[in-house]
């Protein structure tokens, strides 16, 4: 069952076509990686799904509903959440507070003007569970800006998971990480992707191969290959995209 369906999605920036008539379907429960050289349009693709960019043309359907022109917060409300290439968290809030706000977003308390937020213990408790799940136990009261890079990434994943989304978009989750951190992150992604659909943009081929059942390759805004990791490995057009054409005049 296609949970996300993208039809002829196109994005032009002036004369540059970043995403060109992309047609893709993602099935429920899938963990799919999107790879491609820099400038292939991967992040632009994610931005359009999340509503951070308006497509020039085309449609996006999530669980059958057309979400193409919905504002970001409504798309989030449909059950999609994203982590970003450049870590996006609340730096001057504590770790616990970062996650608590993600949980509060799904609660009915957001327009409560008069009671202290700390009164709602169930939000704190759920937040604490997630802090533990992403291995940040002990750092609850630390300001997010004081966290190490790897810890910040885990916090961002924690914020995303706290939303209990149906579809998770991960934009280069292992960017800038050490080898050990990458292994830990792979394990974390495996845990969080149980019972969820995950689409991941990645450059690290080891990460792609250890996690994904399916790989989509983008180049210059177009899908040039779509299949299992092994199929992609053997695909000539993928090699050409990364290495450039060998026999051009």
């Amino acid at each position, binding site marked *: 069952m296609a949970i996300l369906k993208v039809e002829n999605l196109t994005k032009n920036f002036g004369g540059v076509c970043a995403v060109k008539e992309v047609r893709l379907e993602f099935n429920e429960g899938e963990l799919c990686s999107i790879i491609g050289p820099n400038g292939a349009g991967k992040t632009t693709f994610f931005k359009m799904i999340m509503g951070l960019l308006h497509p020039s043309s085309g449609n996006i359907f999530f669980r059958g509903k057309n979400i193409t022109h919905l504002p970001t917060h409504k798309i989030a409300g449909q059950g999609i959440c994203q982590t970003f290439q450049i870590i996006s968290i609340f730096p001057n809030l504590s770790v616990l507070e970062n996650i608590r706000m993600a949980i*509060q977003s799904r609660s009915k308390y957001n*327009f409560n003007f008069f*009671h202290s937020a700390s009164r709602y213990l169930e939000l704190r408790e759920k937040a604490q569970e997630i802090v533990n799940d992403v291995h940040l136990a002990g750092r609850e009261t630390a300001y997010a800006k004081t966290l190490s890079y790897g810890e910040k990434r885990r916090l961002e994943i924690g914020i995303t998971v706290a939303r209990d989304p149906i579809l998770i978009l991960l934009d280069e989750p292992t960017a800038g990480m050490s080898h050990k951190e990458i292994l830990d992150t792979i394990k974390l992604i495996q845990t969080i992707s149980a019972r969820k659909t995950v689409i991941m943009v990645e450059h690290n081929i080891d990460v792609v191969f250890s996690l994904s059942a399916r790989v989509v390759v983008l180049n210059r805004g177009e899908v040039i290959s779509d299949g299992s990791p092994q199929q992609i490995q053997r695909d000539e057009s993928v090699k050409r995209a990364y290495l450039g054409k060998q026999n051009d005049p």
Partner: protein
Amino acid sequence: MSRWLFRKFQDRHIFILWAIFFLALPFLVSNRFIITEILAYSLFGISFNLMLGYVGLLSFGHALYFGSGAYTMALLLIHFKVNIFLGILAGMGTGAVFALVVGFLSIRQYGVYFSMLTLGFAEMVYFIALKMRDITGGENGLAIVRPPLAIPGLFSVSLESPLRLYYFVFVFLILSLFIFRRLVDSPFGKVLDIIRENESRARTLGYNVEKFKLIAFVVSGVFSGLAGTLYCLIIKFVHCGDLQWLKSGEVVIMTLIGGTGSLYGPIVGAIINTFLSDFISLLWQRWLFVLGTIFVIFVLYMREGVWGEIQNLQKKLARKS
């Protein structure tokens, strides 16, 4: 006594200390008129700072809500001899309506565009008010007779006594401060925090950022309107200058000097501003130069304002002990 400096103060303690300070103030300072003015300006600054310090948006037209509150009270008093509480409610309502309209049209803009839009709308109303000289008195303004503190059928107490007037305004300031404390600590207030911290992330968490900003703007308008009605009652006069960009600029400067990081910073700013404008101006015509210099120094070297720096210092002392 000095041990007090080293304690870790909670917000509750600070609130109580400020309440005690204002309760005692009439017995420390002989000029009751000026300190009552400080109360009204403090409230104006606190409401303005909800947008600047908490949401992160600089409104350059906040005099619109202040001045329209003042005018509402004045006009209702002059034409209908309205009860004081009704006048205050009406002033708050006017602030709300203007804030709703301006907010709805401006809230999608950012940075300097937002500031310019808010300024533009305020100036528009200022010029209309100036033109409607028959109603508003133009630059000459309108003088009012201060109504009694009364509930018809129950009691009526004159507010001509400066001390009584001071405590009347004090009650409104403290009640408003109490409401703001609750608001800022509430789930709604926490959303304003994250909007200021990282708006894009707030959106991707499903928060309708525009809605929250607009509600905050209206709350800010309501209490600025309240400050305006109280101000009108204090000086028994309102004129178009209360709607003008100079007044808007005044609250900006006052709040920045006092500190935008907490609810109490604008109070300090109001004290400094009123002190300078009402005392120093008697000694030196160019008192604005002093205000301007202080402003520049603070923006360059003490970003957190007077109150912010005091808090930082106190926290350092508390940590050392």
